[in-house]
């Protein structure tokens, strides 16, 4: 078997085994895994657009949502007797996404860069607003529902249990990943990278950049629609938030935080952000603030995202040059933790007072009881944060120097 084939087999085996790993075999964990899988497909489609073709879109949820609606309507038809097995229903999402991508892409890709971003923003708002005005297709405020168990059984499976839905999602994830990777290897895929890097030069080697962008947009939209279709069968309901700005912003955050330059970054970001959304929101009502700050930190200090960070660290570990860097981290990390702990405390007590005043001012943070109505937690937290910041400022140059030593940076020119 070729190297690529081996990699594929390993990934597929891992995916298949995940829901049976102890700790991940509960209902909640399996549901989370399913969500991550759907998000991963959505993120892969967005990476195709942004990471590979350089197109920043603020309205990618349009394809996701329209795909979801198409799939849920198809599922309703299946409930009413259409003999289509459940795993094929997401294909309606794929088709709807493709059609929408062609229609919108034809107009939007006439321009690139900033104007393209604004067009996608406007179209996203348009579709979202329209979704609330046309209840027949979009179901109004309650959305559209269907049942995934009232469908023809496949090999005796009724797809009622979460683990069965997970496998449907995992199957399509592998298919989507393969399709995206294969697409990037074709001449058009290569030209997507070229158009991203230098659209002008791409013209001088015979290609109309707009055509390339249009194809990329259509393919990305189709995959996003597929993700939407899976979303529909997982939740058995689609509402207008599926085409909303929040969902468009979410996939952008996922792909950028995960690492926009690497294909694997999309998957990494999808997993990380989904996990954060689900688990962090249990602990704190400020999780969106933390996410936004984290996102900005990535832009400022690690534009390659989580995948980029991992890749750089893997490189110096392979070169056995990681020692000085780890030592520098030993100084910097405690300082960073102090700063984060202090700031988080300030944020948490502020949020408690302003958003949940009924819960009272007494709370417990980092195992320390405190009363947010008194000045002490504020002063203490501010001092801790300040101390952490000052220590970090002193430790940062050491980290930078260690990195320069471990891997002399090659400046990307041109």
């Amino acid at each position, binding site marked *: 078997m070729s190297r690529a084939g081996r990699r594929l087999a390993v990934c597929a085996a891992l995916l298949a085994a995940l829901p049976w790993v102890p700790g991940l075999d509960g209902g909640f964990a399996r549901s989370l895994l399913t969500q991550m899988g759907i998000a991963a497909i959505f993120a892969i489609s967005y990476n195709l657009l942004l990471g590979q073709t350089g197109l920043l879109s603020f309205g990618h949820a349009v394809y996701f949502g329209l795909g979801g609606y198409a799939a849920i309507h198809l599922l309703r038809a299946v409930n009413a007797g259409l003999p289509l097995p459940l795993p094929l229903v997401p294909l309606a999402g794929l088709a709807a996404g493709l059609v929408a991508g062609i229609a919108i892409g034809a107009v939007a890709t006439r321009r690139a860069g900033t104007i393209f971003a604004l067009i996608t923003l406007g179209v996203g708002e348009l579709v979202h607003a329209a979704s609330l005005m046309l209840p027949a297709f979009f179901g109004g405020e309650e959305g559209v529902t269907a049942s995934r168990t009232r469908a023809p059984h496949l090999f005796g499976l009724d797809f009622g249990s979460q683990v069965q839905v997970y496998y449907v999602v995992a199957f399509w994830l592998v298919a989507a990943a393969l399709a995206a990777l294969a697409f990037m290897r074709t001449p058009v895929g*290569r030209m997507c990278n070229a158009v991203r890097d230098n659209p002008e030069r*791409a*013209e001088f080697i015979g290609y109309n950049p707009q055509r390339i962008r249009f*194809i990329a947009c259509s393919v990305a939209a189709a995959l996003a629609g597929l993700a939407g279709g899976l979303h529909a069968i997982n939740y058995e309901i689609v509402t207008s938030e599926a085409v909303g700005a929040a969902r468009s912003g979410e996939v952008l955050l996922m792909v950028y935080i995960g690492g926009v330059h690497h294909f694997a970054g999309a998957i990494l970001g999808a997993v990380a952000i989904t996990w954060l959304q689900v688990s962090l929101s249990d602990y704190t009502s400020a999780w969106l603030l933390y996410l936004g700050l984290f996102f900005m930190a990535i832009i400022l200090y690690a534009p390659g995202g989580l995948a980029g960070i991992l890749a750089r660290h893997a490189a110096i570990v392979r070169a056995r040059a990681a020692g000085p860097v780890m030592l520098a981290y030993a100084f910097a990390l405690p300082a960073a933790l102090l700063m984060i702990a202090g700031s988080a405390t300030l944020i948490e007590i502020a949020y408690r007072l302003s958003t949940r005043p009924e819960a009272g001012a007494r709370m417990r943070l980092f195992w320390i009881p405190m009363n947010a109505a008194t000045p002490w937690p504020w002063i203490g937290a501010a001092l801790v944060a300040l101390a952490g910041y000052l220590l970090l400022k002193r430790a940062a140059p050491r980290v930078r120097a260690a990195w320069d030593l471990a891997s002399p940076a090659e400046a990307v020119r041109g």
Partner: protein
Amino acid sequence: MAEGALRLRGVHKSFGATAIIRGVSLDVAAGERHAIIGPNGAGKSTLFNLVSGRLAPTRGSILLDGAEIAGKRAYEVSRLGLARSFQVTNIFPRMSVFENIRASLFWPLGHRYDFWRDAARLADVNERAAHTLERIGLADRRDAMAGVLTYAEQRALEIGIAIAGGAGVILLDEPTAGMSRAETEKAVELIREVTRGRTLVMVEHDMGVVFGLADRVSVLVYGEIVATGTPANIRVNEAVQSAYLGSAAHA
């Protein structure tokens, strides 16, 4: 592929009220090596932009093998068999050196908007790309990301992208700019070899390169051609001398 005869007739280009090219007429025969020289600001790059489709002329006609290309988009001109390099390196920095060359081969070899075939399996494209890489001396940097190459390597890649597709007419915009003596000599050899049998139009400041490579030379001053001839004739041409010396006195 184009035979390579290029004809400019009365080409004008103005930006608003400012006239940059004021009526250029030029005949470049197929297979000829033609250099365009002139003081800074004469409009040499603008002329290239007009011919290659980056700009549209305000007036005039540009004929490639008898077909009008004035005002056509850059990709249309490229498809008709005219390729160019740039004065400021204009490569694909996040793609490998090999991929840079290969990308310029997709269209000429007919692969167009193919989105179902694996490019790594296209023998014609890959062989031509490898071959071009050899010719420009970058075979050992094949997998390096183009953005990290040295300046001279990037200039070589710049030329490579222009010539890989087999265009009949090649425009090189200051190909040896910023190169040392040794690098320049290598570049001239490379240019001579890869443009054998093709039409070459070259903007250059280095007179040594011009006299070593060019069959004919045109002198562009303030958007007009003041003289055309063999290098030897141009050298002794009075109008040319005053243009260069004159502008040197003003500078």
